[in-house]
């Protein structure tokens, strides 16, 4: 195994482009090292991106948008009070990952690129409209988070491409987001269903919404029918029921050790309602 710790993303990209066999980038390593030790994936090339300048930075830009370095950890996000005020749902989603120890290492980028349909931060990022900057052999491109995963363990990143930044939109006025997951325990478990809702209000009426579902299909889903169900409403019971129905209808889950098809489909609707209520309350200015 070859281990590299490049000083720039261009260098990281070049290393990856020229590598043969299995290549992994090393962010927090909470997926990569676990898979290595349990003999699931043994990379031929390991490219540690944590030595690149600025990868731990969490920056609020002049327009209110945010740029996160790719090695910013869950703990660093949770400790950043302003980020949590703007995007509580996204920060909470990241904070659900693992334990205190895992939080000190795990990153949004790693969670996204590991490609699990149950990844907790991914629905929250999709609902928030997050994009990633991808550095490749032919320069940088910006990609919406929902376009990154293509199937379990698979992403749309090409050989030699590495994510170099995470871009979170400006929160803006009267907006709120929330993420809820279902696990049978209280922590240290993998989502059986995950739902993120991000919305904006004009008075009591929802004017914009994005709803994303995790763990109910081969990739995390952005569900437009869910958004339609609540846009134009004040999140009354009829809108909530329509939201739940749309969420359940979008599910294409599997029966496995973590949950059944019937259970996932049903609970996606339940969590969609609950998450929407929290996001709505936050948009109204209620602090969670």
């Amino acid at each position, binding site marked *: 195994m070859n281990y590299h710790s490049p000083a720039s993303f261009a260098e990281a990209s070049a290393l990856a482009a020229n590598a043969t066999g299995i290549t992994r980038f090393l962010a927090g390593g909470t997926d990569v090292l676990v898979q290595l030790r*349990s*003999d699931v994936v043994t990379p031929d090339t390991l490219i540690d991106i944590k030595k690149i300048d600025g990868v731990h930075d969490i920056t609020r830009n002049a327009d209110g948008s945010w740029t996160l370095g790719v090695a910013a950890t869950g703990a660093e996000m949770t400790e950043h009070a302003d980020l949590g005020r703007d995007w509580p749902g996204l920060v909470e989603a990241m904070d659900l990952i693992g334990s205190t120890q895992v939080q000190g290492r795990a990153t949004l980028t790693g969670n996204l690129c590991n490609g699990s349909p149950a990844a907790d931060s991914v629905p929250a990022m999709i609902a928030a409209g997050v994009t990633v900057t991808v550095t490749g052999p032919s320069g940088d491109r910006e990609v919406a988070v929902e376009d990154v995963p293509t199937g379990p363990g698979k992403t749309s990143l090409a050989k030699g491409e590495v994510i170099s930044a995470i871009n979170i939109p400006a929160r803006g006025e009267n907006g709120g987001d929330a993420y809820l997951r*279902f696990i*049978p*325990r*209280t*922590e*240290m*478990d*993998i989502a*059986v269903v995950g739902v993120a809702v991000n919305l904006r209000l004009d008075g009591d009426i929802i004017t914009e919404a994005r709803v994303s579902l995790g763990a109910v299909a081969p990739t995390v889903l952005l569900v437009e029918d869910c958004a339609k169900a609540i846009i134009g409403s004040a999140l009354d019971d009829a809108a909530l029921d329509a939201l739940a129905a749309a969420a359940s209808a979008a599910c294409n889950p599997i029966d*496995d*050790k*973590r*949950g*059944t098809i*019937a*259970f996932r489909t*049903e*609970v996606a609707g*339940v969590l969609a309602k609950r998450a929407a209520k929290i996001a709505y309350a936050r948009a109204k200015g209620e602090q969670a």
Partner: protein
Amino acid sequence: MALDDRKSEFTFVGTRPDRPDGLDKVTGRAKFGADMSAPGMLHGAILRSPHAHARIVKIDTSKAEAHKDVKAVVTRADFADVPFKPGLEGEFWNVLENVMAGEKALYDGHAVAAVAASSALAARDALKLIEVEYEVLPHVTDVDKAMAPDAPVIREGAADYSVPEGMHPNVVRYHESGHGDVEAGFAEADLIIEDSFVTEATHQGYIEPHACLGMLGNDGKGELWCTTQGHWIAQKTCAALLGIETSQLRVTASEIGGGFGGKTTVFIEPVALALSRKANRPVKIVMTRSEVFRATGPTASASMDVKIGMKKDGTISAAQGVFRLQGGAFPGAPGDMTAMCAFAPYNLTNVKQIGYDVMSNRPKQAAYRAPGAPMGAFAVESVIDELCKKLGLDPVDVRLKNAAHEGTKASYGPRYERIGLVETLEAAKAHPHYTAPLKPGQGRGISCGFWFNHGGETSVSLALSEDGSAQLMVGTPDIGGSRASMALMAAEVLGIPYENIRVTIADTATLGYNDVSHGSRVTYASGLATIKAAKHAVEKLCERAAAKWDIPVEAVKWENGCAVPSGPNAGDFDPMPLADITADMGRTGGPISGHFEATPEGAGVSFGTHIVDAEVDPETGKTSITRYTVIQDAGKAIHPTYVEGQFQGGAAQGIGWALNEEYIYGEDGRLQNSIFLDYRIPVASDLPMIDTVIVEVPNPGHPFGVRGVGETGIVPPLAAIANAVSNAAGVRMKQLPMSPPRILAALKDNNG
């Protein structure tokens, strides 16, 4: 056994001193199974079957042997020829067959070959070079299906004499017991409920995986370091499996990171020794978590039918149960224990129980705290709860009305001596928990539970040092704080401070045979032996004082750590402290030590009653346990904190078993969830504060009144939680675990 030394007033017993192993454990100084190494040591790894049931056509190890880092490869041929016998009589054969497959791989994870290499990584990679040709056979993993006429036969001839004619060959042991006339009893009942229940297999879930370091020379002499609940059984079994003399193998038990019954046999130990013998180097093996789940003993899974008749006043007029347990591809599932314990809390005129031990293509079940009892209690206590509800009776009152007491003929035969079930029920009734108001969506459940407890072969030595301190050597690995309890009991007899006594778990070369730390026997049996060994030393101390004072030894007694004249006639001497006697013991007759060995028979059965509150989310089926109270008879709590720890641990493990833990098999017969991520043991935040009440009804069979407390605590939880959840959800839950998908489905069925 003479119990002339009964005691009920105590100086040290019943106090809560710091645990002697505490500092070692919090600083990382304690040496667990994987913490030992030796010069020239190799690392072993085991190749396991990916099939649930397959004939092993051929194993080609040549490529692995050619690997430069590989020093030995073993298969079944490298073990002794152990004779096959049916049932449990052939237990050495059963263990060997489990440790290394013979003609067939019998479950997903069954060991088929092993390598020793110069690094753990090399050993792991070398396994991939071993080529095994399998002929895949039909498999069965479910107990009811394994008994069905068309089930694949796992091993002809495994059934013992107890199995009636005409049963499927997978049924290997049969138990039937009871008394009275159940049909007549059912005829007297005002209400009869008959229902069926299912529980899944769960794993003991000890945090420390199996680990050992073995060294065996071609001269048949060996050393073994391992994490185990019983190093003498490890010694005896390894010797048999390797064809060496028992005494030539010295086994030392490491510090143990949990066992709960699962470390009462061997898995990797004989493999390490076989590899070592071949490589002529020490070999260390440490299991991965996945190996622990796939190849070490979970509990049996169970399918049960229970029928109980009750009169309007709550009297149980008849009870019967059929308990079918599958324990993997070997005899041993405790269907007999389930049957015998199921109705044991009650004073019944008419009772009948049947237990089946059934084989299937799963790993060999191992003991797990009160093996077999929790499942039976789940079925029986659920039916009692339902009867109480339908008849409008209070569940504690009904249990009190039917409770067994001294003199009751137990459902499994004998008459009880003094027991404390009624006292636990009365404590439950008086506890504020029992009458605390419930919030909407919450339900309360109660259950009683019973376990036999065990004595077992026990040998203890105590040696005094010149400075008046004492070292105590016991042979039962400390799985629950027994070093503290032993020191307290020795302190009580010797009259010296707890801190002056160091307790060591002696190796197999140091003491006579000691049975495993199981059956809740350690504080009872090693405790009894400790008391007797300390008494033995006290006799010698008194002899030395008598000699010094030149009076007969009968005129000397032992009081508060000193020899004193037994009365005014004995003479007028100042009390002679223990340290004064030991200071010159070398000149007054030699070292002073005490010794005791026996197989004590008075373990004293134990009962408990649990109260549980549960809250169910009707939209997701998720349960949280909001309040939990354990009430159990400890006879006499030597170190109450440890007793409370056992109670709480039983409840915690019971919560896991009841709500989310389960072995999940795919259609292919492979275990789907062999990591802690997907085998859902409770995490700390899943548990409420678990309140405890220690009831003390002394056991007549122990000098200080001790009853074992390690196992009874896991008997009531499944039922108590199921009753609480059923009451909260408004639908009777008959299958464990009560995972959210199962509860949600039950709610839907109920409403739809």
